[in-house]
């Protein structure tokens, strides 16, 4: 297995809505790490995650994710990362099964992989036939994670995954993240739930005004 960092940003600058949301970020994330990103609102956490997913262009410095140079090509990495942002990316009028099936078809996953993902996220059984619009926030989040699992992402980028969930839902999310890491994925979590996320993370990194302060 490669020992190269999964995420390797050096003096990376990213501009979002005309504002330098990342102002020279230098940061590495190694394989199987669970890294907690913390920082105040507007510190650049979401932009960092979106830059890792190849959604926000890095205009200066260097940025490599899973060996892909994001300065040259932001698209080739996308198939290998999974980003769960503030939104779930689900279709409200479709059922859980239809949502997960859509993603399975799009990425060419098998029926067995779809079933396993739904079982792992506990959205199988009766829940599978309920529309997304009828679900609680935690159930929606679990369904979004099932869609992420079915894609077999190597790098999970989670932006406030605990938001809107009750204690049980938060515990479930933590368990899912730990399982993903033990199955070989690398996870970067941006969270305001510092105490909870600290117990989960193998390392904590602080972002302030678009720059990194490593707290590990």
């Amino acid at each position, binding site marked *: 297995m490669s020992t190269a960092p999964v995420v390797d940003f050096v003096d990376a600058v990213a501009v979002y809505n005309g504002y330098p949301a990342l102002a020279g970020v230098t940061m590495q994330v190694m394989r199987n790490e669970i890294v907690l990103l913390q920082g105040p609102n507007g510190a650049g956490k979401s932009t960092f995650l979106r830059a890792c997913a*190849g*959604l926000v262009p890095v205009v200066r410095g260097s940025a490599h994710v899973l060996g892909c140079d994001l300065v040259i090509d932001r698209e080739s990495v996308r198939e*290998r990362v999974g980003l769960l942002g503030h*939104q779930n*990316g689900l279709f409200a009028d479709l059922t859980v099964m239809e949502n997960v099936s859509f993603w399975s078809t799009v990425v060419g996953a098998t029926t067995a992989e779809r079933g396993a993902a739904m079982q792992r996220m506990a959205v199988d059984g009766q829940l599978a036939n309920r529309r997304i619009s009828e679900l609680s926030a935690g159930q929606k989040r679990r369904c979004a994670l099932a869609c992420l699992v079915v894609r077999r992402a190597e790098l999970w980028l989670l932006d406030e995954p605990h938001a809107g969930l009750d204690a049980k839902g938060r515990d479930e999310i933590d368990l899912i993240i730990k399982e993903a890491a033990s199955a070989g994925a690398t996870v970067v979590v941006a969270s305001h739930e510092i105490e909870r996320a600290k117990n989960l993370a193998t390392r904590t990194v602080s972002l302030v005004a678009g720059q990194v302060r490593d707290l590990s």
Partner: protein
Amino acid sequence: MSMSVSRVARAVAAKDLRIELRTRVVTNQVLPFSGLVMIMFAFALDSDDVLQRVAGGLVWLATLFSMFILVQRTFAVETYDGALDSLRVAGVQPQGIFLGKSLALFIELLVLEVVLFISAVVLYRVSVGGLGAVLLVTCVLCATAGLAFVGTLYGGLTAGARGRETLLPLLLLPVVAPVLICATRATESAFESGGVTVGEGWAWVAVLATFACVFGLGGLLSFGSLIEE
């Protein structure tokens, strides 16, 4: 896992049509709206001769008005919970998204046009012969393909924009003007209204087919950059 364009297109089209079947926006909102437009025209013009002469134009005008609602609806589904972002992050080929959404829009528009043409026959008392029917069907298929491609292209362009509800018609109307003109002329030929013959309509259909090819190809090439940040 590799993602083929045709598989993505089929999945996106099936998903959009399933959402439509479940929410029934076309049947419960767009069809009544376009039916009302046809009836209002009938009241406003109030002359069988005039209505028969302009029937083709009225059908296509009602189609365009309804198309704005359909295009906005099809992209609202993608942007409501960030699904379009998720598709981009997943590295899904934008050509597949473009073709899938165009196909779903094509089918929805086709259903709408069938109802509008039937209502034109009933309300405006237009008739169509054997050769005219062939011309009309070809015209409808080519014009609908053009509208579906250009609608998807501009829907993608305005999907993330502020004020997209008003921006979309503003951008789209000038671009679809050639479809309105050509489809109206071809339909008049099919109805043989105003002294024109069926044979005269084929030249307009050729323009419609060219329009569909240009915007189909343009969409395949540019849709990816249009939905990027």
